[in-house]
């Protein structure tokens, strides 16, 4: 059935009088509907930008499905997005073509056993699959060429493998090994494992806390430097929190977490909180409590106290079915699609197991049940009513009703919209003024956390950079640092410097990504091109350092995968001066453009209090006047040895956010320059800590050959290990809970900056004009795959 669908387009092109003309015209005018579904979109943007310039082939990115004739499915299609894909495909005029780029859209890539993905080929007829994660722009263009060839009716095989017979043999039959993963049968899950640390302030703080919370807590433990766990009872949770908020200056929630411990019949609920005061900045207080493991366990929400917990609570309600009493969003699903399994993060929901051998009867493709609706086939070309019903997205009936009462206009923006990114906004407006925006995220929710607790620690390294492949190093660094903290490993000096260089390059890359999307939202394609040209330079350095443009997976516990060559260091050094020339032009044409300034000034203002209340992080928080930068507050790598300044501002508007980041980028360039100078003066080699290498000390300058041997059986000590890292868009928090026996984490909580910033976008755009929504949105550099994880 699909086969005929696939061929229908070609048939259309090859029939009628004007066949050659039709074919020729279609061939050179494939307009992809830029269906930004996932992180592969970053490379799509690069292909469209000046580095490769897809427009050369007549392939002009078009946001509007009615006018496009080509879909490039960029990676993951989640269950929620599947409908959108089908609808968009239905909206396009015949003849139309579909390419799937990125492993996620094929057999699932790194997310192959996620509970929330589907395969595009089950949803729409696909012409070509392009492997890669992400694909390279070359691969993408090869796909376009392949479609062109197909339209011409020529042979379009792009790769020919040569078959070589394997040696015949006489060996004995062997039993295949079983899984390398070790799961403790009854793991001991503790988040308050005490540790002796040299932390005088902490001891005082604990004393102080004990005095303040007299009678409210069960125990207060120092688990690590700067980490304190406070155990309390569900009844006292609110009171404890209020006390902390009132007397200690705790003003925001960094993370909310639920841990499922089925064999002890309990859920642990924890809030990681902190305050933006000088002393409290690096400290994270974990308030946790235990509740019974029922179908719908209840706990009082802290969202009224700390607004920043709001969305995370709603997300956990999706994941575990925990009811946060008092949070208004406890009805229905937030991140997940209606047909995703319920409470998927509970331990009794099992993901599909890995297969290590090929055996008869075990399919290659993991079992993924396609979404409920069945696409119409040639035998029944139109949808039935119930199928149509299934295709619909949540409609927010109550919102519509209320809006009608208030005489407001409601627009549903996204998830397929040229300016929505991969999520949906329900915008209520009165005239040209935005009354409210309701986010509908989760279109790229790929169940990162569930997957992470089913993979070896080392296998999670590539996974943790997938939320944000425009800033991969920082995402990675956070995870790796959490492991290093847990194991107490000291990273060699050279590796630290190189990591810093890479982290800052990655930050620069992410900045130019955001500052490329921002001009697009403002309708300024030159700004997009210029910033992607600079980003192309960053990627060039990345590929030379690591071998991959966007997904290096280069930082591993204890160091980096291999030493980088002097030639690359020279280039990096050159980059720090070369960037200025192009940056200057970019600034002149876009950033300092009076039209843009007038669009940004005093738009989307978040005051300091609002910003803290919404829990926004990173450069956006600093733009509102909070002087918090993890690199300063809790320096890691070599940030404390280099000379640089973090940025703040106090306007809190779009202008402040953009200029703050612009300055930050200049500082980053400065950091890179200093770090490169330092590395160039160091002896080569020795970039992986010998503590972790054990027997494999010889591999300390290149892990090649021994990655699995060294890291395969990594087991973290028991406890909760939390790291905060300053990623490009703000603080990324990883907390890994280990039971001390398994070589897979028990639970990994990832709080990405964009997830926290979502609340800020909503707040900042209220009361602004409709067009300003995109200014605000883009000024936050929102990257949906990162938010949805």
């Amino acid at each position, binding site marked *: 059935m699909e086969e005929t669908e696939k061929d229908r387009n070609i048939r259309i092109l090859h029939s009628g009088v*004007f066949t050659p*003309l*039709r074919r*020729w*015209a*279609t*061939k*050179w*005018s494939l307009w992809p509907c830029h269906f930004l579904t996932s992180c592969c979109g970053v490379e799509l943007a690069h292909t469209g*930008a*000046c580095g490769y*310039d897809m*427009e*050369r*082939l*007549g392939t002009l990115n078009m*946001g*509007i499905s*009615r*006018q496009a*004739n080509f879909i490039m499915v960029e990676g993951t299609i989640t269950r929620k997005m599947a409908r959108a894909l089908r609808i968009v495909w239905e*909206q*396009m*005029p*015949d*003849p139309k073509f579909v390419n799937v780029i990125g492993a996620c859209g094929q057999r699932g890539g790194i997310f192959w056993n996620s509970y929330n993905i589907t395969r595009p080929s089950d949803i729409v007829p696909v012409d070509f699959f392009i492997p890669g994660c992400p694909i390279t722009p070359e691969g993408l263009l090869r796909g376009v060429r392949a479609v062109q060839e197909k339209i011409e009716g020529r042979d379009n095989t792009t790769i020919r493998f040569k078959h070589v017979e394997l040696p015949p043999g006489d060996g004995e039959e062997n039993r295949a090994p079983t899984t390398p993963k070790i799961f403790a049968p009854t793991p001991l899950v503790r988040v308050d494992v005490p540790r002796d640390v040299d932390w005088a302030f902490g001891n005082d703080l604990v004393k102080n806390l004990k005095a303040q919370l007299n009678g409210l807590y069960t125990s207060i433990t120092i688990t690590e430097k700067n980490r304190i766990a406070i155990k309390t009872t569900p009844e006292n949770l609110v009171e404890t929190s209020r006390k902390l908020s009132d007397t200690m200056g705790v003003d925001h929630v960094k993370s909310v977490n639920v841990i499922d411990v089925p064999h002890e019949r309990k859920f642990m609920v924890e809030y990681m909180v902190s305050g933006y005061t000088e002393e409290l900045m690096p400290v994270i207080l974990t308030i946790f409590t235990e509740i019974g493991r029922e179908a719908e366990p209840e706990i009082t929400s802290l969202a009224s106290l700390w607004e920043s917990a709001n969305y995370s609570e709603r997300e956990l309600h999706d994941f575990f079915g925990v009811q946060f009493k008092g949070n208004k969003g406890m009805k229905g699903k937030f991140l997940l699609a209606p047909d995703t399994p319920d409470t998927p993060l509970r331990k009794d929901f099992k993901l599909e197991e890995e297969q290590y051998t090929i055996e008869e009867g075990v399919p290659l493709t993991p079992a993924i049940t396609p979404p409920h609706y069945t696409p119409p086939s040639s035998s029944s070309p139109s949808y039935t009513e119930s199928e149509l019903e299934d295709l619909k997205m949540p409609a927010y009936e109550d919102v519509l009703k209320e809006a009608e009462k208030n005489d407001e*206009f409601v*627009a*549903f923006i996204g998830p397929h*919209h*040229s*300016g929505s990114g991969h999520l949906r906004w329900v915008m209520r407006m009165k005239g*040209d003024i935005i009354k409210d925006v309701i986010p509908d995220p989760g279109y790229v929710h790929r169940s990162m956390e569930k997957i992470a607790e089913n993979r070896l620690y080392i296998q999670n390294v590539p996974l943790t950079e997938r939320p944000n492949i425009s800033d991969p190093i920082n995402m990675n660094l956070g995870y790796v640092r959490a492991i290093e903290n847990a194991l107490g490993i000291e990273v060699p000096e050279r590796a630290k410097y190189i990591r810093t260089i890479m982290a800052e390059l990655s930050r620069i890359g992410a900045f130019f990504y955001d500052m490329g999307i921002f*001009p*697009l*939202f*403002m*309708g*300024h*394609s*030159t*700004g997009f*091109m*210029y910033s992607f*040209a600079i980003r192309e330079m960053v990627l060039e350095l990345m590929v030379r350092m690591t071998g991959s443009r966007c997904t290096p997976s280069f930082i591993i516990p204890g160091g980096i995968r291999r030493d980088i060559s002097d030639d690359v260091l020279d280039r990096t050094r050159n980059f720090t001066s070369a960037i200025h020339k192009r940056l200057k032009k970019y600034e002149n*044409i*876009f950033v300092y*453009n009076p*039209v*843009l300034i*007038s*669009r940004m000034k005093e738009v989307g203002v978040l005051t300091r209090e609002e910003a803290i209340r919404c829990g926004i992080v990173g450069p956006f928080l600093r733009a509102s006047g909070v002087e918090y930068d993890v690199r300063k507050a809790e320096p890691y790598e070599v940030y404390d040895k280099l000379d640089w300044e973090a940025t703040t501002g106090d306007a809190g508007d779009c202008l402040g956010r953009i200029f703050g980041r612009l300055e930050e980028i200049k500082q980053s360039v400065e950091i890179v320059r200093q770090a490169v100078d330092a590395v160039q003066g160091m002896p080569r080699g020795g970039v992986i800590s010998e503590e972790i290498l054990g027997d494999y000390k010889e591999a300390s300058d290149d892990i090649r050959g021994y990655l699995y041997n060294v890291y395969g059986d990594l087991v973290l000590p028991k406890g909760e290990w939390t790291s905060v890292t300053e990623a490009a868009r703000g603080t990324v928090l990883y907390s890994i809970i280990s039971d001390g026996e398994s070589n897979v984490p028990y639970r990994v909580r990832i709080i990405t900056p964009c997830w926290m910033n979502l609340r800020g976008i909503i707040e900042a755009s209220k009361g602004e*004009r*409709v*067009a*300003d*929504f*995109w200014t605000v949105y883009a000024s936050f550099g929102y990257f949906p795959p990162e938010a949805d994880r």
Partner: protein
Amino acid sequence: MMEIINTLMETVMSNQVSIPLIEPMLDSLPEIPMLQYMVAFMLWKPIFALLICPGLTVGGLSLLFFPWIERKLCGRAQWRVGPHEIVWWLGGVIQLLADSLRFLFQEVIVHKDAHRPYFLQFPFLSFMIFLLPLLFIPAGTIVAIQTPYAIQIILALVCLFPLFILGFGWASNSRFAYIGTVREAFMYFAYEIPFIIAAIAMIILYGTSDPLLMASRQSIPGIILNPVAALVFFIGAAMATGRMPFEIPDSDQELCAGPHVEYSGIAFGLIYVLCYEKGYILSALMTILFLGGGSGPAIAGLGDLSGVFWFVVKTYLVLTTLFMLRAVYPRYRLDQGLKLGWSPMLVMAIIGLAISLVVVAVRVI
């Protein structure tokens, strides 16, 4: 019978486009029957204007190649190349041919909610209506319909355009189209008045609204005599064509192209070129009002075509400038666009008017 033909011939012959370069060729034509008449007919100024320049041929070619020029130029300014591979040794000139053919052969979808007749009629209708002003625009000395009220008629026709865009939006019956249409209506109010005042300033300045006369009275181009009016007119043209920074009604990233979000196939193809059509007409108007129309140093051998040449060159210059704005500016917000139209532009337009009056007064004295 012969008489009628003869009188007709006389009218035709009396108003011929003279091109010295091809005259010898024309002289040899009488040997071939009928062709002589046909050529004469073609070279009859009104027909020439209608069919060749500024009419269908040059207009059509502009529509076909101007988007390419725009894409190439913007591409160049953006550190890339633009359409290229289609015939790569020519830099992909026929890109737009491929695009338009593709649109032509593609399915036209009329969605369930649309008002079917209007949804389909408007693109075709508007394409026709948008061509009408060309009848009154002279290329050099060649014009299809010569009237002393040409400028007013052109302005009136230009002011019709937004109505059709409202029509698209209304017929599409979609939320984004609706917002886009409302914005279009607002923007219409923003630019129309200053735009017309600027044109009137020039009419006052030249003391005529006959484009041919206007051109002949511009020994000093209007843009030098009255730069303020020229600026207002230019900005007004940018607003009218919905170019950056005023691409407010069909802002791609906000409203998915606003009024024409639901159009597909050839219907969209027509809408896509509408904006270039508008641009062409307004640039032609600007050429007449401010750049001296077809005046310029006569090129030997071209005769009347010399005027055509200068006219086309100037129009393209204006058009290029208009479209290069895309590479320089981001988009204004609706209220900012309105504010710009109502305050600085209106003030400037009135200043322009005053300048014209002063110039006229100086002349009279």
